[in-house]
């Protein structure tokens, strides 16, 4: 099994979520982060002076998926989160040893 982590633009969350659900993904976990990348922050004007703000608000998504679903899930996120503009973000795939569903104690693919 794999843990797919994606850093995306906040306003893309809804689309990504809908796409993943339509792929049959049963769950995901989302948090708000600040990201820093090639986008190199944003320029903000405050009181008439210009500033470079290095960290940009992003959304971080975690999805645990079965091995055979990984490619489909990555592709879905890619498609749904892409705007084609800088700052679209990254997807990372992490191998995992085990998943447990707390409610039932099920392990592995069952637990998803």
């Amino acid at each position, binding site marked *: 099994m794999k843990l797919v982590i994606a850093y995306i633009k906040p306003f893309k969350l809804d689309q990504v979520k809908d796409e993943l659900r339509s792929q049959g993904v049963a769950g995901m976990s989302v948090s708000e982060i600040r990201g820093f990348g090639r986008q190199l922050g944003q320029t903000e004007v405050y*009181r008439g002076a210009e500033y470079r703000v290095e960290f940009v608000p992003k959304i971080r998504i975690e999805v645990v998926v079965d091995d055979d679903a990984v490619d489909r899930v990555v592709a879905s996120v890619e498609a749904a989160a892409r705007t084609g503009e800088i700052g679209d973000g990254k997807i990372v795939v992490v191998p995992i040893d085990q998943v447990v569903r707390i409610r039932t104690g099920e392990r592995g693919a069952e637990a998803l």
Partner: protein
Amino acid sequence: MSEGTIAWLLVSSALVLFMTPGLALFYGGMVRSKNVLNMLMKNFFTISIVTVVWTLVGYTLAFGTDIGGIIGGFDFLGLRGVEGDALLFMVFQMMFAIITPALISGAVAERMKFSAWVLFTTLWALLVYPVVAHWGFAADGWLFAWGVRDFAGGLVVHINAGIAALALVFALGPRKGFGAEVMRPHSLPLTLLGTGILWFGWFGFNAGSALAADGIAINAFVTTQIAASVAALGWVVAEWLRNGKPTTLGAASGAVAGLVAITPGAGFVSPLSAMAIGLIAGFVCFWAVSLKFRFGYDDSLDVVGVHLAGGIVGSVLLGVFAQSSINAFVPDGLLFGGAGFFLKQVAAVAVVIVFTFVATYLLARIVKAITGLRVDDNQETEGLDISLHEERGYVLAE
């Protein structure tokens, strides 16, 4: 005094007192969240300090029997013999003595020690404010006696606080990261709330300064409303044109700039003149707040840009727009044929600027020698709330 006038002045005093918590919120919203409590605290504590100072000594220095036009004598020490109407006048004036140093606190936000602020405010409320108040407000004060007019405190409150802020900023130095990092207001809703309270309280400030519930008070009320509105309009239009977006901070700052600028003339100029004054103040103060970037002084929350600049605009324009037909206690301004009065107003502005700048800078050096002025670098990074007060502004998840 009639009961109607007593009622009005009691209300006005309460309104002016309410302005200081309003100012605390106005400023508190503009700092970063790690410094919000320190900002609020500096303002609230100023109420405490100045109330004591004014009761015991300040009032008599400002309004005691005149000594050479310069200062009041000690006759009202500890409010001796101050009763009835005089007590009412005392407390109305107390509220002005409170908010004036409170205004300064915005310029030195996010870095000045709390202990230094306590000492500074005590000394300033004792040694600087009563002097300028005597000059401008007391019947025998030399500026007033000379013919200068300051309806509700353009000189005594706003220029006085604004130039003191500048002196203190020079003594203190800029915040870490000033000019390089953007230091955004952490809660503009708090700032807008503060603006609302200030605007509301300002009716007591300006219309209360008529010292009666009469036509002058009505006139002051109306000019206050108009100038605040138009200055907000002016500021927002200016930034809309220049930076492409109208901002809420601009609207709030503009409103305050207008309120400042109409203060010296509220009971002396017509409603339409107030419109002109407000518009000019909106433009000038919008431009004035950008000076700190050009000249590199860290007037953190724009006390100089709004109160000094707005106070100057208002005091000088009073010399232009004053109408003796509105209020017999003022001569006509430039526009209505009175050049002399205009020049006196300009001179008075210069006098207060020089006096208060020098006096404040000296006080700042004294305070520095005793308590030090700034928190250390780590405290500044961590924020003053935790480092000085061991409190956090917001504990939203627990």
